[in-house]
Structures are given as structure tokens and as C-alpha cells.
């Protein structure tokens, strides 16, 4: 390129940028010390880091106790992680393995490993043997239900009221995430339907759910639903919670997806129609791939919100990981160790939510085809 353009008269050759505008110095100058105000902020920020971080590291790691039977064994000034070391079973599995009626822990563990195997081909399209893995993803829900709940094919039944801790959080979170997206898409399409009955139904559902707090819905499901069922039929408490969580997040998801549908230019619908694609084909091949891509941040936002909202099932007597942590710190052995318990729970939540957030950013970049509207 330059060879051809160099030829004409008065051509200006490209020069190096002035020193101090590129590289590490340039970056610092631009981002940390671009003005007096920013320089002061930078110094204050640095001072805060120097002042707090060593103390935090010391408390959390250096002078922490990692082993012990109760809080009396924690003699140092630091954190008492013995709490986690002793109570990890409850924090992770609730009362899953306690007798009578409990099951062995390999079952939830295997279910978790299965979840990873089932999720990977859904998240990444360059996995080897993806086709077969996707088949596994398809049967995984049944497999996981059998592993966790048992009752046939040689596994003892473990009643859902024994499920708890992270296991319960994961069950509600994963079921909610897996079902809310497809249901949300259907609701969003329904809300834009030409058929008034379908449109009204979707609008009423979405607006009712969005108008009522999740806690209210959970209370209604646990206290009022049984009144509508005939005597003797008792819907499992966990199933009720799942239904509410799925319905709740689907309504929000529907609005997120609707936003994406509205962002697609009319020309895309017309081009799809003009080719003779049927409604469903044009939706699944043309419109939804684009609409969902636009709203990835919104979708993942809903997922993260949903994952954290699962902890509200505490109000109907289901003990997720936060419920278990709360139970632990009210126990006589561990009383007063709220900091350790909640920090641990916070870290666990953070790992999951942050992963989802990073995945969403990665996916957005991957799907970017350079098309700016």
C-alpha cells in the first residue's frame, strides 16, 4: 500500500508518536495522572490499598486457624476457617447424607461432575465430540434427578427436604436458568403475537409476575397452593419453589428477549419473509440468533440475579448455602463467627456469578461479526 502512495509529491511519511504517549509510561500518564485531580485520587487510592490489604491478608490467611473442633480451638487473632472445615458437609449438601433416609455424597458429586460435562458443549461450540456430549446434555436432567433423588434402579430415595446447602442452590439455580430462557423466549414471542388471546395471556402472566415480589410468590406457593389441591395431594416443597423461581425469572427473561426482538430492524424480518421462510424458521434462523446476541448482557444479568435470588427460598424453610451458614453460626460451637461464614458463602456465590459474567463477555466478543448498526 505504502509503495504505491509514496510516489506522489508532498507525501507525508508516518512518524513515531512523541515519547511518553505510548507504553507503560504513556498508559500511566493517561490513566493515572492525567490531571491534578486524578493524580490525587491515584495517590489516595494507593494509600488505601497499602493501608488495608496487608491487614486483610494477614487476617484471612497468615494468622488464620484452619483446623479445630469448635471456635475454642481458634486461638489466633485471624479468621477461624475451622468452621468451614468442620461444617463443609452441611454448607455443600445440607442434610443429604445424614441418616435416617440420607444418601451417600458420591451421588451429588457425580451429579455435579455430570453437570459440568453437560454444560460445556452448550457453552462452547469447539468441544471435541460435541454432538455426543449434547445428547448427554439432553438426558442429563433425568440422570441428575435420578442420582439426587433416587428411589429406583438401586438408589435409595433421598427426600428433597434433606437437600440443602450449595446443592440446593445449584438445583434451583440450574433449573431456573435452564428453563427460564426457553420459556422467556416463548413468552416474548407470544407477547408480540398477532393472536389477541395469546398476546393477552402472555401480557397478563408477565405483568402479574413482575408486579409481585418473589418472596410473596414463594409464600403463596408454600401456603396457598395446597388449599387449591385436593386433599392428600401434596406437592413437594422444592418443586413448588422451583415452579415459582422458574415462573419469576421467565417473566423477566421475556422482557429482556422482547427488547432484543424490538432491536432487530424490520428489513431482517422482510428479507426472511421474502425468501419464503416460515414464521418459526425465520425466528430460529434469523431473528432470535441476532436478538439473543444483542441481549446477552441482559440475559446473563437475569441469570446472575436469579442465582442469587435462590437464597430467598429460606423463607419457606428450604436451607440453601446461606441458610446453612446462618444455621452454623447460631450453633453454640461456632457462635460469633458470622464473618467467616458469610465471607465463605460470599466467595462461593462470587465464583459462580463472576464466571457467568466472564462467559458472557467472552461470548459477546466471539459472536461479534463486525456489524454495527
Amino acid at each position, binding site marked *: 500500500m505504502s509503495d504505491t502512495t509514496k510516489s506522489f509529491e508532498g507525501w507525508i511519511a508516518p512518524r513515531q508518536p512523541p515519547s511518553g504517549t505510548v507504553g507503560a509510561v504513556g498508559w500511566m500518564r493517561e490513566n493515572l495522572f492525567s490531571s491534578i485531580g486524578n493524580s490525587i485520587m491515584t495517590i489516595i487510592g494507593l494509600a488505601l490499598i497499602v493501608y488495608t490489604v496487608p491487614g486483610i491478608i494477614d487476617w484471612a490467611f497468615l494468622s488464620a486457624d484452619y483446623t479445630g473442633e469448635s471456635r475454642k480451638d481458634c486461638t489466633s487473632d485471624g479468621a477461624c476457617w475451622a468452621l468451614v472445615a468442620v461444617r463443609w458437609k452441611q454448607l455443600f449438601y445440607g442434610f443429604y447424607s445424614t441418616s435416617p433416609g440420607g444418601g451417600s455424597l458420591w451421588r451429588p458429586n457425580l451429579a455435579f461432575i455430570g453437570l459440568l460435562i453437560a454444560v460445556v458443549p452448550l457453552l462452547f461450540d469447539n468441544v471435541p465430540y460435541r454432538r455426543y456430549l449434547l445428547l448427554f446434555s439432553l438426558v442429563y436432567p433425568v440422570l441428575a434427578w435420578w442420582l439426587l433423588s433416587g428411589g429406583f434402579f438401586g438408589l435409595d430415595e433421598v427426600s428433597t427436604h434433606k437437600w440443602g446447602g450449595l446443592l440446593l442452590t445449584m438445583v434451583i439455580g440450574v433449573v431456573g436458568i435452564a428453563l427460564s430462557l426457553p420459556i422467556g423466549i416463548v413468552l416474548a414471542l407470544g407477547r408480540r403475537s398477532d393472536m389477541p388471546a395469546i398476546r393477552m395471556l402472555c401480557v397478563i402472566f408477565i405483568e402479574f409476575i413482575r408486579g409481585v415480589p418473589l418472596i410473596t410468590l414463594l409464600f403463596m406457593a408454600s401456603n396457598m397452593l395446597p388449599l387449591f389441591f385436593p386433599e392428600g395431594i401434596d406437592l413437594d416443597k422444592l418443586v413448588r419453589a422451583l415452579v415459582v423461581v422458574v415462573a419469576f425469572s421467565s417473566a423477566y427473561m421475556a422482557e429482556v428477549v422482547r427488547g432484543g426482538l424490538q432491536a432487530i430492524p424490520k*428489513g431482517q424480518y422482510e428479507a426472511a*419473509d421474502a425468501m419464503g421462510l416460515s414464521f418459526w424458521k425465520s425466528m430460529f434462523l434469523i431473528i432470535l440468533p441476532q436478538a439473543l446476541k444483542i441481549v446477552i448482557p441482559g440475559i446473563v444479568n437475569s441469570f446472575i440475579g436469579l442465582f442469587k435470588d435462590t437464597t430467598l427460598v429460606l423463607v419457606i424453610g428450604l436451607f440453601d448455602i446461606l441458610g446453612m451458614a446462618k444455621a452454623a453460626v447460631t450453633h453454640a460451637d461456632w457462635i460469633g463467627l458470622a464473618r467467616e461464614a458469610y465471607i465463605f458463602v460470599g466467595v462461593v456465590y462470587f465464583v459462580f456469578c463472576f464466571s457467568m459474567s466472564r462467559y458472557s463477555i467472552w461470548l459477546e466478543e466471539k459472536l461479534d461479526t463486525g456489524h454495527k448498526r
Partner: protein
Amino acid sequence: MAKAAAKKAPSRAKKTGNGAAKPAAKKPDLSASEGVAIQCIGMNKWYGDFHVLRDINLTVNKGERIVICGPSGSGKSTLIRCMNRLEEHQEGQIIVDSIELSNDIKKIDEVRREVGMVFQHFNLFPHLTIMENCTLAPIWVRKMPKAEAQDVAMSFLERVKIPEQANKYPGQLSGGQQQRVAIARSLCMNPRIMLFDEPTSALDPEMIKEVLEVMVDLAQTGMTMLCVTHEMGFARQVANRVIFMDEGQIIEQNEPGEFFDNPQSDRTKLFLSQILH
């Protein structure tokens, strides 16, 4: 959502179109139309209260190349969009390739399979590569095997002179290239009729020529073409007939030599004097 709109419209069209103002000959036209590609009989369309197309009677023969021009808002785009039912008409008949357009979704899809359309803003699918854009409809509508669809697509991409862009995304192409892809994409469905809705008006001046060249090339293959455009050079070069529209009516139609050199109505003269500086 054009499909949705199409679904909604039927009841009204039936009442007015097939009931009250029944056009004289309905059947004979279908049978006697060996050489007829599109026929509009007493066609009317309203947007709400606004009467966009008024008593359109138009017969397009197979292999004919028609250029439609007229001031903006004259209904020319609406007219060709009615021909593949992106817009529905409320009165009269449109018969495309011996299929009458009504609310019957199956018939509409049948017509759309045979009629290609090129839009002003290309409307390529930005999430698919050029190749995928071209093979999508053959695979999903025509049920063509993927390999065959790719061969067909490649041959058309070669014809519009951009085979090397096959694996890029539309966002990486210039406007002219995108429009040529859009033409190739339509041709991949092997249509009998091609509709062009102002194919060059969204292009930079430098890129108009490359698109027009492709269209001229296409015209030489004997494709039936209806083209809304203001490229009068193109009209002179390839059209059999130029149609001038204003206020939703066909004011004048003639073969291009006569049309440009000897326009009949004052409205046409005024229009021509304004666009041919």
C-alpha cells in the same frame, strides 16, 4: 413482522376483493397466461385511510424487464412489495406465476419461493457469513443438500464477482459488495421473477456501477425483472418498459425510448425534467 401483518389482513381483502367488486375475468386470465409472469387487476391498497395504490392494472410478461420510477411517496415500492405480499392489498387481484395472492400462507410462501427480492438496504443477515446467507433459503426452504447449495451459491457469487468474500461477514463488506451478495442470495433460490426495490439508492456513488453491471448481466439472461430505480441510464439500457407512477397511480408506461424522448403527460415531463438535469 410482515408475515404477521399478512396474516391479519385476510378478512377484509376477501370481502372487498372477491365479493363486491369482482373483476370481470378471473379464471380466463390464469389459463391464458402462459407468457404472463405477474398480473394486477384492479388492485387497490390503503394504509389506514391513505389510498396508496389506486386501480392498478398491470401485466408483466415473462422475460420482461420493467423499470418503475416516480417521485417519492408515489407508491412504487409499495407496488412491488405487494407482489410478494410483504404488503397486502385490500382490493382487486394480484396473480404471480399463476398463483393468486390471498391470505393463504401456503400460497404466499409458494409465491415467495419463486420471487426474489433485493432491498434498498440489502438486508443481509449480519450474523451469518456470505456463504451462509446464500445457502440458508435453499437449504431450509428448498430442502437442498448443503453441499449442493454451497456449489450453487459459489457459482452465483462468482457471477456477481465476489467469490473470495464467501467466508466473510456482511459487516466486513462495502455497500456495493453487500448489494451484490444480496442479488446472489436471491438468485440462489432460482427465482423466476426478481424484484428490485431501489437497489442502488443507499450506495455510495462509486459503488452504483458495480451493482448495475450485475443487474444488466442478469437482464441479459432473460430474467423477468421489476425494478424500482431512478437510474435512468439503466432503464434505457435494459428495460422493455418504463412505468411512471404518481400518487399511487400508473400515469404512463412506454418503452424506454418513447418514454424518455416523447413523454405524454405533463406530470411525466415535469418529473423527467427534474431528474435528468
